[in-house]
């Protein structure tokens, strides 16, 4: 006992001797409360004043586009998103301009009000789903990738080296795959989006209509968008039909009349797909599955009798509440925080505060059209 006490006292004395030598390690965290719009910090050393600060989103390795100084994050191809915007704005615009005056005066003024509220909610959810970070996992730093590589090599000399890890989650064996692009073992339910070239947490699917991936951070906005859009579509469809039948006696021929009635056509064709999609996602939410898992049949009993979803809470209500009202994690890829991209290789590897993904070999990129980083 006394020997252990002496040993621990010696250790403490050694630590105290060593502590003086390590006082110069700066413990200021790079993540603590740096507002996005803060002005650039001055260079730490007089000799390094020549380096201009770059924002993290400017050197982001994925194939995303950033707007508004990194606050808005979208996929590269946004053409279909603009089509979605045009369809919604045009249809609602025509409805509010040509049908609402008649309906408000002949039926009730509540119709344009409810329509307006639905429209604002739909647009809000669309923008939130399109512009949010879906839950992108930042790529491994070179040190992390090297450490993982060493772990994989040390597991054995089998060729090819094992690129999967098995974990037991709530009694179910889940395989974690190694992502060659991001150099990480993907967490459960994460998947790599080939269009955006990122690993996304709880990856559902890449939605071209929304112009972004749907993942952990924006799934609820996507779901509320399609549900509210279903309601809006049905609402407009119902009331335009009402208007048409109410004014059946009057002259309704000609191009202008056709234009006024076009919301009906748009709504008729889109209601099937949107309502169907809402129903599908309601089923997914109630069983706590992602589109990715459902398509692959990951938890289907057809694979094996013992197969079950380890993430489900067992209760439809809890699953729904968890998906829609659960805590919203903040973005891990903190694209709006300024960090200095060091062109000096030696300083980058030694500085613990420098956590920019573009370490030594990466080229600098411009603000728009981020290039892929070849690892």
């Amino acid at each position: 006992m006394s020997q252990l006490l002496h040993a621990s006292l010696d250790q403490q004395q050694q630590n105290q001797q060593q502590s003086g030598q390590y006082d110069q390690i700066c413990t200021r965290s790079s993540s603590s409360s740096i507002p996005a719009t803060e002005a650039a910090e001055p260079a730490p050393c007089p000799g390094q004043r020549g380096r201009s600060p770059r924002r993290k989103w400017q050197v982001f390795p994925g194939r995303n586009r950033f707007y508004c100084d990194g606050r808005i994050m979208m996929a590269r191809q946004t053409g279909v998103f603009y089509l979605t915007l045009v369809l919604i704005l045009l249809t609602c615009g025509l409805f509010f301009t040509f049908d609402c005056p008649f309906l408000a005066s002949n039926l009730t003024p509540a119709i344009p009000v409810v329509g307006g509220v639905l429209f604002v909610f739909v647009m809000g959810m669309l923008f939130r789903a399109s512009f949010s970070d879906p839950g992108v996992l930042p790529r491994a730093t070179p040190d992390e990738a090297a450490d993982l590589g060493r772990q994989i090599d040390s597991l054995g000399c089998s060729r090819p080296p094992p690129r999967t890890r098995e974990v037991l989650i709530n009694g179910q064996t889940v395989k974690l795959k190694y992502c060659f692009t991001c150099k990480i073992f993907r967490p459960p339910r994460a998947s790599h989006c080939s269009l955006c070239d990122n690993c996304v947490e709880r990856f559902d699917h890449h939605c071209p209509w929304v112009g972004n991936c749907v993942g952990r951070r924006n799934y609820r906005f996507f779901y509320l968008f399609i549900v509210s859009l279903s309601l809006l579509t049905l609402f407009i469809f119902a009331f335009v039909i009402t208007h048409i039948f109410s004014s059946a006696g009057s002259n309704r021929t000609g191009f202008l009349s056709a234009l006024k009635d076009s919301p009906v056509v748009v709504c008729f064709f889109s209601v099937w797909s949107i309502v169907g999609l809402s129903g599908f996602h309601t089923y997914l939410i109630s069983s706590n599955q992602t589109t990715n898992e459902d398509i692959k049949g990951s938890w289907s009993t057809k694979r094996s009798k013992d197969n079950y979803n380890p993430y489900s809470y067992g209760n439809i209500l809890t699953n729904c509440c968890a998906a829609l009202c659960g805590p919203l994690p903040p973005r891990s890829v903190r694209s709006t925080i300024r960090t200095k991209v060091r062109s000096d290789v030696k300083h980058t590897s030694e500085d613990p505060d420098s956590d920019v993904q573009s370490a030594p070999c990466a080229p600098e990129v411009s603000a728009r059209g981020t290039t892929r980083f070849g690892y």
Partner: protein
Amino acid sequence: MDVCPQFHNLQELRHSASLANKVFIQRDYSEGTTCKFQTKFPSELESRIERTLFEDTVKTLNNYYAEAEKIGGQSYFEGCLACTTAYLIFLCMETRYEKVLKKIAKYIQEQNEKIYAPRGLLITDPIERGMRVIEISIYEDRGSSGSSSGSSSVSGSTAR
């Protein structure tokens, strides 16, 4: 708030404390996708810090993350309120997760100042690594010769 008097001193004194190695504490997925880190004590830290201190740090961090991701009355209330305001309420209010992350950042800084930096270690906040790993940087002192015997065995065992 800094241990070192000014940031540029770290640059000037870098020759006497250099980064030797980094240890990565991986996630523990046994309870699902909730954020939890493994409490297994890495062998590289055996000569640098006591096991109990390390385990306490990781367990406290796990508790913080569990608190942030807890699904209960408060999170439902926050979610419903946010939904009814079309999520505009988050323009003037921060989410519970963000509040807990600030507490975590403060805790990590305090641990670094009190426990880890005096032992030549530095914990990086997991949010900087996408919540995938806790990165612990191991520094070795190149200045003095007497006390470097422990650290040289660490750097000697891993190839860089």
